[in-house]
């Protein structure tokens, strides 16, 4: 027993089982944590994601493995045989068969593994509860709704068009992902390309929600790209904004926004919900929870609930969501050419979205005879409130007395709605 114990222990040690891939992913997790703490890169998400990434790559522990994964790790011959029978393959091909199993046979395999006493690892459990069900991103969307003041948008609804234009980043990236298939090694399906494209929406919970429906295997890379680029908005956007606008345009001072009544603020979420149910029911979960959160906020009669949505619920869900996303950064899934492609496509998506927003801003500048500063179009990508702050900063460079923050909040929150609408379209056409 002692020798067996020692040997069992050595084989149970991480250092005896640590692969290069896992080591690399642990460093990636460390990098995400470093960026979160030192560079304040979306720390609320990237710190838990980075930590989840490290945990997911702890050798032997299998924290991110599901019940079938634990069955395979345990390696009991009779259990392997039972699994092979269910998947209708020889035992030697089980690894591959499990990876490509889908639908009913995957469900049957999971059921078998659980019946045999195997359980999913801690992170996988978090993932199943929070992301597979779609609940976590939806509750975060409720919190975003409860935290967001849509006044700027209500005061100037035309800024919605800037939020619409910036979604071009999504759809051009969709083409880009499909075009990338010419490169050997890439083979994105339409569903995968759609999930990747949503990075251009610059909205974390929307990206997680859509990726969990259309391409769960790519979720880790997509979420990391979405949150990282959201944090990089102050670096990515300004050069594009300056390149596409003249100094005269950037100096435009916009007239003050009109005050918005309490009644308008209450009717706003209901109006958005109404349009959504009439025209795009597939966006109903996202738009529904966003407008529900906003109604809790603006109704003025349910402060308890509004505060719960803004604090307790969103905080607890963020912790679990972050760890769950991190669980998808397992070495064997993340370290692939596809991830590099996703990172490149995501960067392109942000750039194109920004450019499209600014160009629409220039169109509105012309149409309004110079009343609209085209810079605010850049805020249409979402990334609330970072993008609006970047607009403000670039505006101040051109004119030291030009505060564009409030004007940029309109397109900024419009971008949130815009990317939820885009997600709805993708779900309706691709996700059926």
């Amino acid at each position: 027993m002692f020798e067996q114990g020692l040997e069992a222990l050595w084989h149970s040690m991480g250092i005896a089982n640590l692969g290069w891939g896992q080591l690399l992913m642990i460093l990636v997790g460390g990098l995400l944590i470093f960026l979160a703490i030192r560079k304040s890169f979306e720390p609320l998400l990237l710190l838990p994601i980075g930590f989840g990434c490290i945990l997911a790559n702890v050798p032997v522990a299998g924290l991110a493995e599901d019940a079938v994964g634990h069955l395979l790790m345990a390696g009991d011959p009779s259990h392997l045989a039972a699994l092979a029978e269910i998947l209708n393959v020889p035992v030697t091909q089980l690894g591959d068969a499990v990876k490509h199993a889908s639908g009913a046979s995957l469900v049957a395999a999971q059921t078998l593994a659980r019946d045999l006493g195997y359980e999913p690892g801690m992170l996988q459990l978090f993932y199943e509860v929070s992301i597979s069900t779609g609940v976590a991103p939806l509750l975060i969307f409720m919190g975003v709704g409860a935290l967001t003041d849509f006044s700027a948008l209500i005061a100037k609804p035309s800024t919605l068009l800037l939020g619409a234009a910036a979604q071009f980043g999504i759809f051009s990236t969709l083409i880009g992902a499909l075009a990338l298939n010419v490169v050997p090694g890439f083979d994105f399906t339409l569903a995968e390309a759609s999930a990747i494209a949503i990075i251009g929406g610059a909205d974390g919970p929307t990206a997680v929600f859509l990726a969990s429906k259309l391409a769960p295997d790519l979720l880790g890379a997509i979420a990391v790209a979405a949150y990282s680029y959201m944090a990089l908005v102050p670096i990515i956007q300004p050069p594009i904004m300056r390149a596409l606008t003249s100094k005269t345009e950037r100096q435009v001072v916009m007239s003050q926004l009109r005050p918005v009544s309490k009644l308008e603020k209450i009717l706003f979420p209901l109006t958005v919900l109404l349009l959504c149910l009439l025209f795009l029911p597939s966006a109903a979960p996202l738009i529904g929870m966003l407008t529900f959160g906003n109604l809790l906020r603006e109704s003025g009669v349910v402060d308890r609930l509004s505060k719960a949505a803004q604090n307790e619920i969103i905080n607890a869900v963020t912790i679990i969501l972050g760890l769950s996303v991190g669980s998808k950064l397992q070495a064997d899934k993340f370290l692939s050419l596809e991830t590099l492609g996703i990172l490149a496509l995501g960067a392109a998506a942000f750039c194109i979205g920004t450019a499209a927003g600014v160009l629409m801003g220039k169109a509105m500048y012309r149409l309004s005879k110079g009343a609209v500063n085209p810079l605010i179009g850049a805020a249409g990508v979402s990334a609330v409130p970072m993008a609006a702050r970047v607009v403000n900063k670039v505006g101040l460079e051109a004119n030291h007395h030009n505060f564009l923050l409030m004007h940029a909040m309109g397109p900024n929150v419009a971008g949130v709605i815009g990317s939820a609408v885009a997600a709805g379209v993708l779900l309706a056409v691709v996700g059926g």
Partner: protein
Amino acid sequence: MDTNLLIQGAELMLLGMGIVFGFLGVLVFTLRAMSALAGRLSDEESIEPAPPAPLNVSDHRRVVAVITAAVARYRASSRAA
């Protein structure tokens, strides 16, 4: 490479941008109508006060009033003690 897939993607792009602009465009008009309706419904409805500054001032006043009263009471009681 699957050209068919690329064509599907292009169609999806047209469709998607169309819907996004369509949806948000309709929303522009609906929101304007909503604001007009809200304005008519509630001329009595209070317009949100623009600058939050005066509120703070009055808060300060209230704080000061509370402190003043407390100090006064404290002095009275300490004299009594």
